[in-house]
């Protein structure tokens, strides 16, 4: 089984790479667009994948991934199962601050197909923050994009004095 490593490649100067993993391509692209439209002081590239592992052919072309965002849609149970299956292909050292779970569809209780506690438990088990949002609303999408950019900046080591791990620790303690 191909395991995805966080530090097997060298970083590129003043740039950061985000990997979005989720079963809903539409939402993924919307979010990626929102992130690209934001003003930023560094170069970003966003990679989209429906599930892990990533194909090994393109491996040598892929830059170092600084942050993996797993997208879960509370409206479909499949999105959660997909994320759970993908998590097995991520190296343990990634979970030292370089992974987060993004839960969308929040606020649509009547469409809920996923038990919220199972998502919360996922965050606990994998020691990673869980962010809740509604990507179908433009304002929350923009806010989420800004939030992820800031996290990416920290995870790529562009913020002096704050490492991914400290940030992760702070974020999870604030719950």
């Amino acid at each position: 089984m191909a395991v995805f490593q966080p530090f097997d490649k060298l970083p590129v100067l003043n740039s950061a790479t985000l990997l979005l993993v989720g079963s809903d391509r539409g939402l993924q692209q919307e979010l990626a667009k929102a992130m690209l439209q934001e003003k930023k002081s560094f170069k970003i590239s966003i990679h989209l994948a429906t599930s892990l592992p990533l194909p090994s052919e393109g491996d040598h072309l892929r830059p170092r991934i600084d942050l993996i965002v797993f997208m879960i849609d509370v409206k479909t149970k499949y999105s959660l199962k997909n994320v759970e299956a993908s998590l097995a292909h991520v190296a343990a050292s990634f979970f030292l601050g370089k992974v987060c779970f993004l839960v969308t569809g929040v606020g649509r209780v009547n469409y809920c197909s996923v038990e919220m506690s199972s998502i919360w438990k996922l965050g606990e088990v994998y020691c990673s923050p869980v962010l809740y949002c509604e990507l179908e609303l433009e304002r929350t999408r923009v806010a989420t994009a800004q939030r992820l950019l800031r996290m990416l900046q920290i995870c790529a080591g562009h913020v002096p004095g704050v490492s991914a791990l400290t940030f992760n620790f702070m974020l999870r303690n604030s719950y």
Partner: protein
Amino acid sequence: GVVLRPFLVMESLDGAARTLPSIGRLSWGLPFGRAHGRCGLSPSGGLLLQKNLDSQAVAFLLRKRWALYSVTPLYKFSSAHLKAYAKLLSAYIAAEKQNGLAVEVGVELDIKVAISCLPDLKGSEQDEAAVLVQLSLRPQASQKKSEEKVVWSGWFCSVCGDDLSKNMPADFTCLPVFLANGAESYTSIVGSWFQKMFDCCFHHLAISPLNLSWMAAMWTGCKLEENASAMELVFSVPSLPQSLDISYAIHAEDAKALWDTVQKTPGEITQEEVDVFMDCLYSHFHRHFKIHLSATKLVKVSTAVASAHCDGIIKLGLSRQYFIAAFQRKLLTLALGQK
């Protein structure tokens, strides 16, 4: 009695499910965000209901489509004054029909209102008796012999909310579930009268796919009659240009056999068991049609016992003995959860 674990239980970190001992500690917050799981009702409380159900009193509840609403507690409602309420309500309806013209209270009006208690629909002694509201058209003078026709009916109920009634402040009556059958215009008139009279608030109660799957499992587990109709699950496929519905029917006995292998303690349903049950059905479907039903939205569940639609419409089947307290308690939990 049968102990039914409510569908939403607090999950502690180690994965063990536990129910909170008292509904007084029900979390009223948003079910999302930081709240990591919602709590349910205490599973205590016998099922007085089942032995009382032989009476004809509840026969009218069966085989009808009921729209679900949740209701906040009624202020200064007293079951001793039901007759007076009926008079006021019928005058209110007449006034509404005449666009607000004043109507004398107490005279014979076109629409007759009857408000009564349904003491049979109680889960425990502490529960408030269910309240039934019926609107019927008075027969025309020309056809005197014809019977009054019920055009609309609705009932309030609270089942197994022992702690709920204990923790209610004085002057408040808690009947959190309201079910209506008939024209929606009547529902809104009656609703607005109750709103004005008792300072309560009605909300349409939709049923999420998660809760629908819970109901599917619960009804599957009920004892079967001969030739019970098949269980049918209807799924809608999201984000397609045309709407596409998938209907998945399973023989009742097959579904029951599957559920019996999944359920660990008879009479108790846990969320994990429901998940396993649905996953089995989904993977069977996937094997044949290569479609992940888990990626679609469950919109309707119908079984011989009852059927429920995600829009908050339920229909109770023939078998009266399964007009279960458990089901009502489920609705209660739903009604309380939606704030």
